[in-house]
């Protein structure tokens, strides 16, 4: 079975679920959700055992699809996050349905499948056309998902903001693609890399195109100064969608960014130094602009949004550090590693948020007061999640940051390193503000919070993943190792 079959099947499953809902409107949403989860899980299993070489793809796909380790990793990543988002949707369903039309959630189960397929295609893209179409598939789906709970003013506002800004970024992206194409005469990453390594290529046009293209992609990954949509949209969107955006969409954006940068920063690239400097500046700025305003947030959801911005900053900085000879992970590998660690901690955070909402509580820090008393387990798990987000050692988050910082130090990017350190230091403040709230004893008259065993299992699994990745990252590193090797070969 080829990977493409799985991807297509996933999209198809999305359509089937829509049809099921259409023809059997009274179907229990839990059934629908579980079907989606089961389907995705099946896809994941099949994906693991599928053939992982390009030759196994259908012929018409072969020129457009690459199945290197990075692509495979991100495909798996997309499947995992989709499963988790679907689960999160089920958890959040009790309150989400209050804001959806007729209390229906069917599209919340089917669209993620299509998004997942889109993200998997993005991961394999070898040219800008593929990037564009799959990116748009994802983006348009997200327009719908963000505004899905449209009876909530927040969700709708987030939808409008995401729509306008997203469309603007699409325009910028296409304009950038046009100029890159104009400068290099090709839209495939390999071709672009080849052209950029050729000194005869027009440098100004290439720089101009690359700059605009990176602006467009920067929007997707929330790089400063294109991050301004993130807090509003993340806060307004339904929590599962926020999780999906902050993990899935961002990861997909970073995959594409990795691919594009692999081309732009190819050896002897005529625009290499400029783009690298841009990345350093943007990365530092992003880390800071994510961290500094986060200190004043009262809503945990918005806080997580800002945190996600600053994480994007670290990821950009990781991308700016190209070859690290003394590292088994290339920049792409570090990014992948970071994202892999970022997944469980962010999802766990959002899961906690969703559970709070589902139990009739708010999303503000003050609503977290006394959580440790009401549900010690949840408080513990959330603490793990936030500790990891803050980058505390022995959690997954620390290793990711460590690799980034090591890379920066290895290349001597001290300015960027100091910005990252300041951002991380600020991070301690706002993450622990929330943790502290959970453990305060004041205002604990609220009733105990009950979790189903399945929820506990999923949340526990995520926490364990954070801790295991934090102390035993070897398997993950191994998984990502060939990725760096192939890229090193290509570079």
């Amino acid at each position, binding site marked *: 079975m080829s990977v493409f079959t799985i991807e297509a099947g996933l*999209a198809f499953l999305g*359509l089937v679920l*829509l049809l099921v809902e259409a023809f059997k409107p009274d179907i229990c949403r839990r059934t629908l959700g579980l079907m989606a989860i089961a389907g995705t899980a099946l896809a994941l299993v099949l994906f693991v055992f599928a053939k992982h070489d390009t030759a196994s793809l259908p012929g*018409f*796909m072969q*020129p*457009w699809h690459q199945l290197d380790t990075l692509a495979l990793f991100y495909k798996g990543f997309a499947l995992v996050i989709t499963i988790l988002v679907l689960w999160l949707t089920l958890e959040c369903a009790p309150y989400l349905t209050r804001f959806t*039309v*007729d*209390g229906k959630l069917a*599209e919340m189960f*089917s*669209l993620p499948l*299509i998004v997942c*397929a*889109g993200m998997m*295609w993005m991961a394999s893209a070898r040219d800008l*056309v*593929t990037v564009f*179409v*799959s990116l*748009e*598939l994802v983006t*348009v*789906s997200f*327009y*719908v998902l963000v*505004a*899905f709970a*449209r009876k909530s003013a927040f969700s709708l506002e987030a*939808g409008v903001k995401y729509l306008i800004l997203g469309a603007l970024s699409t325009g910028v992206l296409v304009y950038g693609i046009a100029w890159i194409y*104009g*400068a290099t005469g090709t839209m495939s990453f390999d071709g672009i890399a080849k052209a950029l390594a050729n000194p005869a290529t*027009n440098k*100004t*046009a290439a720089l*101009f195109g690359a700059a605009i293209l990176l602006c467009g992609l920067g929007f997707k990954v929330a790089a400063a100064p294109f991050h301004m949509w993130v807090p509003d949209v993340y806060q307004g969107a339904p929590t599962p969608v926020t999780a999906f955006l902050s993990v899935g969409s961002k990861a997909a954006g970073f995959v594409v960014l990795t691919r594009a940068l692999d081309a732009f920063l190819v050896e002897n690239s005529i625009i290499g130094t400029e783009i690298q400097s841009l990345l350093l500046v943007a990365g530092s700025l992003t880390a800071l602009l994510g961290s500094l305003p986060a200190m004043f947030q009262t809503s945990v959801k918005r806080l997580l949004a800002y945190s996600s911005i600053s994480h994007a900053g670290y990821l950009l900085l990781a991308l700016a550090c190209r070859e690290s000879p003394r590292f088994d992970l290339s920049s792409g590998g570090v990014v992948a590693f970071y994202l892999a660690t970022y997944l469980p901690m962010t999802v766990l955070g959002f899961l906690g948020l969703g559970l709070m909402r589902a139990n009739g509580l708010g999303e503000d820090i003050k609503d977290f007061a006394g959580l440790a008393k009401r549900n010690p387990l949840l408080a513990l798990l959330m603490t793990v999640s936030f500790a990891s987000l803050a980058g505390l050692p022995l959690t997954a988050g620390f290793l990711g940051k460590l690799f980034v910082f090591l890379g920066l130090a290895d290349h001597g990017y001290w300015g960027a390193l100091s910005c990252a350190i300041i951002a991380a230091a600020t991070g301690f403040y706002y993450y622990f503000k929330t943790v502290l709230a959970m453990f305060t004893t004041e205002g604990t008259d609220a009733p105990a919070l009950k979790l189903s065993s399945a929820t506990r299992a999923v949340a526990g699994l995520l926490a364990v993943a954070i801790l295991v990745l934090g102390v035993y990252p070897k398997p993950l590193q191994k998984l990502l190792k060939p990725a760096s090797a192939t890229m090193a070969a290509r570079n």
Partner: protein
Amino acid sequence: MPSLLFYLLALITLGFGFMVVTGRNPVTCALSLAASFVGLAALFLSLDAYFIATIQILVYAGAVMVLFLFIIMLLDIKAEEGKKLNLPAIVSGVLLAVLLTLQIFAVVSGTGLAGKSPENTPLALTEAAGKIGKAALPTITNDLKAGTLPDAKLIGFTLFDQYGFHLQVVGLLLLVGTIGVVVLSKRERSAP
């Protein structure tokens, strides 16, 4: 192509574009946009992109604009007359537009690409017929040999020969769009 015609078309495109940006009545804006797109389509024609020009008119000036107008009518949106203009936004918008234009000027004048014109880079249709080789359909080579540019055929060939996957993705995207529209604009069946 005569310069005059180009400038005329550019004027139409940009002028109507300007009216979109400045028009106070949404309907005026929509119609100006349609006009601007027609000008744009003509520019596409001048670039030998007949198929693109056609779908620009069909899809944009046709379908999309109709959709816009339809929504404007449906919502009965009043002109912004009564509303105060957001002066800082206007100033900053103009400022950014000017800056961006200047940058593009600088970039365009700074690149060697700018020198290419239809005159110095003419299409070589008959040679192309030979170079494309057997991969292409006979009807394309025949047209090329005859000295006409089989634009639609070539695009179609490229799309269906190379970009089959992308077409399917775009198809899926349109489907998602449809679903989205339904989800987002459906009226609530049962009042809560």
